[in-house]
Every structure is written in structure tokens, then in C-alpha cells.
């Protein structure tokens, strides 16, 4: 069981809703993943007026909790505005805060992120900040009122998988009690299993599922990998040794087990 803000969730997979071949495929993927939280981008789907209405209705019908995001925002001000709009549209205080610093790499602007996180937390939002693996930034975000952190493991949509394992390890060690959700950069189930084995609390996926040949099948594959990684972490992973060590003494006799 994982607690984020005051909500308890059993599924450790969060799913983004962008870029699927169709809403029907998205809904199959959500079901196959058994996720309890989906993210939805407000910015891209609100080109004026009550746009996005029908799509948002489909998202609501998925029956999961909705974590709106501020994808596509480049300044703190824009992100704050989008968060407020999201609160209206989805009637939730949750906001996945994204402030993009580089249009090309989609790397977060951590300075604007901290600023926006502070403003939104003060206004009663429960902020899920998309950040890097930098520990000092993470501390600032917690000071600003965040009680969950969402570090990347590689750039958004890159599918490269964990690029800096030791940074992720120190983040886990540094913040043992903060829910840490790896957001962005996961390409395949083994990547997700890897970060879960390190003790991260959950994984947020979008492109890796949406862009797969069979998104629903991939979602279910990911769900299992995440579960497996979590079980490995809870069970205590055997650390690699310098040489092969037989599990039973083998001196001079055959081993029957």
C-alpha cells in the first residue's frame, strides 16, 4: 500500500493518457495496467473554450483518480494558471507540476518549478513535482510544501531507462520517507523493475505504453514488472558478489536437492 497525500493506492503504476492510437485503446491499457491514477494534460487539449470536453469525459469514465498535469508550461506563472484551470475542470487539488526549461529536451526548469510549487502548495494544492534527481532541488521542493517527488530517470519520451543509478540510489537513501515516483524516461518493463528494486515507490508511464505496438499488452507487462520489482525490494535483493558462490557445499559429493 502506498500513500500519496491522503490517498492510499495499491497499484504502483501511474499512467499518462497522451498519444494513444485511440481513446478505446487508452481505456484498454488503463484496464490492463490496473492503474488507479491517470495523468491528463490540460494545456494541449484546451485550445480555447470548453475544448477537450469530450476527451476529458472519456478520461473521467475510466473511473480512476485523475492527476492533471501542466505539461507544456514554460513558466511558473503559466503552470500556476494551468493548475487552477485543472482544479476547475477535474475538481481535484492534485496537480502534477511540470515546468519545462528546454523545449527540445523537455528538461524541467527546477527554479521555476520550486517557485510554482510554493505558490500552489500555499493555495491548497497537493503538488506532484516533475523534477530531476538533484537532491538539493528535492529538498527545496519539500520545503515548498510538496509531500511527493517525481524525479526523472531520463528525459521525457526518451525511453532510455535509468541513466544515473547512483543518483537514484542516493535520492532513495536521502528521502526514505517521501513517496518517490519515477516519472519520465522509462522505455521498457525491465527499466521499471530496476527502479522499483531500488525502492522507488511507483512509476509513471506514458510513451512506453502509448507508443507500443499493443499498448494494453505492454501496460500489463509493465504492471507485472513493477510488481516484481517491488516484491524484490521488499524481499531484500541479493547484492552481486565478486565471484560465484555455490549455495551448498559441494566438496567431494554430488548435490541432491
Amino acid at each position, binding site marked *: 500500500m502506498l500513500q500519496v497525500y491522503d490517498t492510499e493506492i495499491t497499484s504502483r503504476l501511474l499512467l499518462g493518457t497522451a498519444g494513444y492510437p*485511440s*481513446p*478505446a485503446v487508452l481505456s484498454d491499457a488503463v484496464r490492463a495496467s490496473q492503474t488507479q491514477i491517470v495523468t491528463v494534460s490540460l494545456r494541449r487539449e484546451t*485550445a*480555447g473554450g470548453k*475544448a*477537450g470536453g*469530450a*476527451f476529458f469525459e472519456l478520461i473521467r469514465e475510466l473511473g480512476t483518480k485523475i492527476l492533471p498535469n501542466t505539461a507544456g508550461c514554460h513558466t511558473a506563472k503559466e503552470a500556476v494558471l494551468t493548475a487552477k484551470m485543472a482544479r476547475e475542470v477535474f475538481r481535484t487539488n492534485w496537480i502534477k507540476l511540470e515546468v519545462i526549461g528546454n523545449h527540445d529536451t523537455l528538461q524541467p526548469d527546477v527554479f521555476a518549478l520550486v517557485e510554482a510549487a510554493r505558490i500552489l502548495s500555499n493555495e491548497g494544492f497537493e503538488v506532484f513535482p516533475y523534477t530531476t534527481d538533484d537532491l538539493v532541488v528535492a529538498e527545496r521542493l519539500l520545503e515548498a510544501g510538496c509531500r511527493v517527488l517525481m524525479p526523472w530517470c531520463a528525459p521525457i519520451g526518451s525511453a532510455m531507462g535509468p541513466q544515473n543509478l547512483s543518483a537514484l540510489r542516493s535520492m532513495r537513501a536521502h528521502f526514505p520517507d517521501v513517496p518517490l515516483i519515477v516519472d519520465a524516461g522509462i522505455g521498457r518493463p525491465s527499466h521499471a523493475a530496476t527502479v522499483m528494486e531500488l525502492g522507488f515507490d511507483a512509476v509513471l508511464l506514458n510513451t512506453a505504453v502509448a507508443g507500443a*505496438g499493443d499498448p494494453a499488452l505492454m501496460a500489463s507487462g509493465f504492471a507485472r514488472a513493477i510488481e516484481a520489482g517491488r516484491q524484490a525490494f521488499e524481499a531484500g535483493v541479493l547484492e552481486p558478489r565478486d565471484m560465484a558462490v555455490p549455495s551448498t557445499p559441494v566438496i567431494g559429493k554430488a548435490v541432491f536437492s
Partner: protein
Amino acid sequence: MVLQRRPGNGSNGCQMRPVLIKGAGVVGLVTAYELARRGIEVDVVEQAQHIGAGASWFAGGMLAPWCERESADEKVERVGAAAIEWWKAALPGKVAQEGTLVVAAARDTRELDRFATRTTGHRWLDAEEIAELEPDLAGRFARALYFPREAHLDPREALSSLGDTLMAMGVRFHFGQATDATVSHRFDWRIDCSGRARLPDDAALRGVRGEMLYLRTGDIQLSRPVRFLHPRHPLYVVPRRQGLFMVGATMIESETCGPIAARSLMELLNAAYALHPAFGEAEITETGTGVRPAYPDNLPRITRSGSTFCVNGLYRHGFLLSPALAHDVAECLLSPNHQSEFHDEA
């Protein structure tokens, strides 16, 4: 089998009275054609003063069933492949079957590999072969995917000539008429092809906004649609006559029709410029927005309630799929037991 029945004079005492079609977009016109050539009397009401007032006017006009398979259902490829022959037969000389070229910037060539694994009906080209096919793209790309069987047409020209053909076949058009109330009593069947106008009445239908623009330049020539892959902003350029190029298109979950957004314009132009710098010097002659009506599975549906059929949800595939849908509607009218793949009994 094509059944020939004269209006009001069906076999077995079955009366085939005139049919009213609402909407002169690609679906309405293609349906009118399929009915008229089966000898059925057809009237078309269109709320605008002219043909093609809706999404169809802004389409790329690509008949690209193999490329579309990248994200579309298997049905789209299967049914769409036949559309190329349909358009060639209906509008001789107006369809170019030059294939489609798919390219990506050097750093995004993995997108090409991904595209290749999702699709069939293509072959790889190297730099030399690209130059042979599209001399103006020489030296710009090391590899490309080529879909030789695909075709394209100019949607505006196609709609207008289809309109002319229909009038010559005796189909009556009533422009500037938003309601069919005044004429409806004369018709046994009504076929609603009103596209996004159905949104308020059909809860399952949604709009997917597509923004596009036209560029004019004499500095570059293309013979076929070129798709330029990008992880976030894929784009295509479709050549038209007289140095015109249609550049499209965004995909936004929204049913608003308003003018193109600055960001979208920037993204489209950026991609066009990356495809070839000559587009940077081109004139922007037009920007436009169409709303693609779509069902949750992004596949079209024929729904029937009483004596009204609705044909809608053509999404990105109005030109590609309307021949198959029109055929199904015509068969449904003529033989009540006809099984349509797209039929969704309301």
C-alpha cells in the same frame, strides 16, 4: 453485385423512393454517388452555400492506408486500400498514385525504424534512391521508407468535380438549407452526413482538431506526400498544383474550430523548414482548422434509427474510408439483410 432499381419502381413491390442526404462533405458526396449509380434518386441538402464547407475542405487528401496503419486499426488498411481504385474510377485523372515518402531527421531515425515495424507495403530507400524519386530532397536524408502503392488527390478539386459529376447524374443539391424539415416528407430514407454538426446529438462522438496551412513556393518540387517523422510533432507535406503545398496537421482533442494557434503554426512551420529550407522562403497563403469527428476507437460508424442512417466518425480517414461506408449504406438500403462491418445498430 450492383442492383439496378429505378426510383419508385423496385422489384417485389419494394418501393425505392428518393433518399435525402444531409451534408455535402466527402461522406455525403461519396454516398450520393454510390446511391445515384445504383439508380436511386438523391437530394443533398447542405447548410453552406457551396460544397465542402466542413472538415473535408482542410484534408490532406492522402489515400495512405499502409502509412495510417502505424496508429490505425487493421480495418483501416484493409478497407482503405480499395479506396484508391474507387477514387481513380470516380474521378479519372484526378488521383496521383506516386506513393508516399517517409523521412526523419538524422537524430530521429529511430522513429523511422519504429514506423517500419508498425507498417507493411513499404521498402527502404537509400540517399541515392531518394534523390531519384524526389530530386529536391537530394542529400537531405540518408534513408527513407517508400510506400509505392499509396495515392493522393486534391480534396478541394475532388469534392468540386464529384459535385459536378453528381449533378450530371441527376442528383439535386439544395444549398443554404440547414434543415430538411420542409422537404423530408418526400423521402423514405435520410442519410445524415453532417460531420461535426452531430456532436451535440451523439454522445459517443468527439472532435479532434486538426490545424493546417498552405505554402506557396517555386523553389522546391515534390511529386508525392512526404511524411516527416518526429517524436512529438510529426508532419506531412502534400504537393498540390502551381507550387502549392498543404502542410498538416495537428491532432488536438478539441472540438473548437477557431483559427490556428501560434504554437501549432510554429511547430508546423518548423517541421516544414526542417524538411527543406526552401519552405522558409515560401508564402503562407492560408491557414485553416478542421474538426475530425471520431468515435472512441477512431473507426467510423453507420448507425440507423428508423429511416435515418448516420454515417460519421471518419476521423483522419474521410477520403480513405468513405467509399467503403457509402457502399455499405447503399447495400443496406437495397438489401435489408446486408451485413456491414461498420454498422452499429442504434
